[in-house]
């Protein structure tokens, strides 16, 4: 397969072959991080800009390390100290940075579609690092990579994605990714946080965590995004925990073979109990490790396409 895209905006527009190509490429990049010198010269001389309009530690750090391990230079654009606070539009911001001859933008924004708007305005590569409630493609790619590493395959597996589906870009990207690669996806959460008509994109809906978990090979717990709950989608956090929180009292982790995943940062004691996060079924730190390899692969493939 030949990779042709300079942007990665979402998994919805990618084919199964393209997703598998990224995962295959990432496999060889994983080895680089185990070397004494954790660096290859593949993107030497390239400049990559972290353009984050929303706070993020993990994703930003992960992209920065990925870029540095490919020998690229990284510019971290802090929105609080930038001209955005003076009223500049995102397109102008991106064009001004591009005028300083950069090669790639990694964009996070609270508005769905912001990376697309930027990609239409610049010649550099644009990678979506999470936009509104739309997509977070590299998170889903690292989840797919981790599942493939553990199970040796994705096709035929059953994954239950549990939590605030409505606001979750992680859920959306994972739904596209896992269904395209042949897994069976069930989404589970409070009815108020379930997007209407979501069955139409090929998932089953379930409102009981017990039922969702009982059939699953992978239990994927979403972070309850407290910052997006101003509209009272559920009565209280305690009630949410009682009905949709994952804990070892509800589920005997020694009995059934399933793995637990979480995109981080975890709200311990809310969507996941502390002891469940520490169990050997938990792939949470493995996900973080694989994030570097997957992002190296994405940067390597897209930045190559910039003329």
């Amino acid at each position, binding site marked *: 397969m*030949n*990779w042709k895209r300079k942007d990665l905006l979402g998994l919805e527009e990618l084919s199964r072959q393209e997703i598998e190509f990224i995962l*295959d*490429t990432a*496999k*060889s*990049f994983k*080895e*680089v991080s185990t*070397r*004494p*010198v954790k*660096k*290859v*010269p*593949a*993107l*030497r001389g390239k400049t990559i800009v972290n353009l984050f309009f929303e706070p993020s530690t993990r994703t930003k750090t992960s992209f920065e390390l990925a870029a540095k391990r*490919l020998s690229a230079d990284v510019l971290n654009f802090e929105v609080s100290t930038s001209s955005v606070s003076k009223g500049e539009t995102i397109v102008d911001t991106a064009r001004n940075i591009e005028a300083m001859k950069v090669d790639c933008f990694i964009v996070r924004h609270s508005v769905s579609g912001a990376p697309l708007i930027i990609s239409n305005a610049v010649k550099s590569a644009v990678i979506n690092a999470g936009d509104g409630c739309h997509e977070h493609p590299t998170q889903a790619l690292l989840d797919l990579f981790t599942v493939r590493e553990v199970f040796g395959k994705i096709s035929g597996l059953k994954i239950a994605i549990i939590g605030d589906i409505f606001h979750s870009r992680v859920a959306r990207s994972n739904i596209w990714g896992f269904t395209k690669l042949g897994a069976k996806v069930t989404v589970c959460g409070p009815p108020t946080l379930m997007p209407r008509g979501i069955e139409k994109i090929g998932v089953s809906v379930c409102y009981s965590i017990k039922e969702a978990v009982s059939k699953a090979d992978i239990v994927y717990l979403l972070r309850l995004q407290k910052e997006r709950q101003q509209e009272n989608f559920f009565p209280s956090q305690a009630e949410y925990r009682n009905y949709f929180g994952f804990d070892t009292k509800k589920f005997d982790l020694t009995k059934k073979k399933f793995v637990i995943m979480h995109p981080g940062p975890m709200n311990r004691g809310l969507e996941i109990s502390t002891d469940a996060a520490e169990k050997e079924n938990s792939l949470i730190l493995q996900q973080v490790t694989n994030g570097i390899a997957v992002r190296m692969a994405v940067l*390597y*493939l897209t930045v*190559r*396409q910039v*003329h």
Partner: protein
Amino acid sequence: MENRILSANEIKKILNKLADQIIREMGSNIAVIGIKRRGAILAERIKKILDKKTKRNIECGSIDITLYRDDFSAIGPGPVVSGSELMFEIDDKKIVLVDDVLYTGRTIRAAMDQIIDYGRPKMIKLFVLVDRTNCRELPIQPDYAGIKMIVGKKQIVEVRLKEIDKKEEVVVTDIK
């Protein structure tokens, strides 16, 4: 037009002869590293010969130099990155670096850069099955060469190994 330069039997003889020379000249503490893909296969074969002759288990690994290429900006179909397998400490080792054909020398430059990222070997010696002596672009010469020949720029040397190509031979053909 296809011109056969080496037969399966001749390849075998060359590997045996050069393995003797390696043992004589390099002594102990040897490790073999092949450049993917055909260099890695030749490295594996040399390792087996050295194992037999020295009654030791010689370390052997392979590297993929894609990420170290110097023609990154040349836009084209991206080569698939296949990964490197170097599972041993290379510090103070005497490395035999193996490739099938030595042409411009750029692959070897990339391979040496990569090896040095893994540690500090005592020395690196270069082993190639075919040395195209007239096309070098960098000051790199082989220490062990199966056959040295002058081949025009319009021709290619194809090393075919049974593990990948089902056949075992070295041929010179015109670029199509």
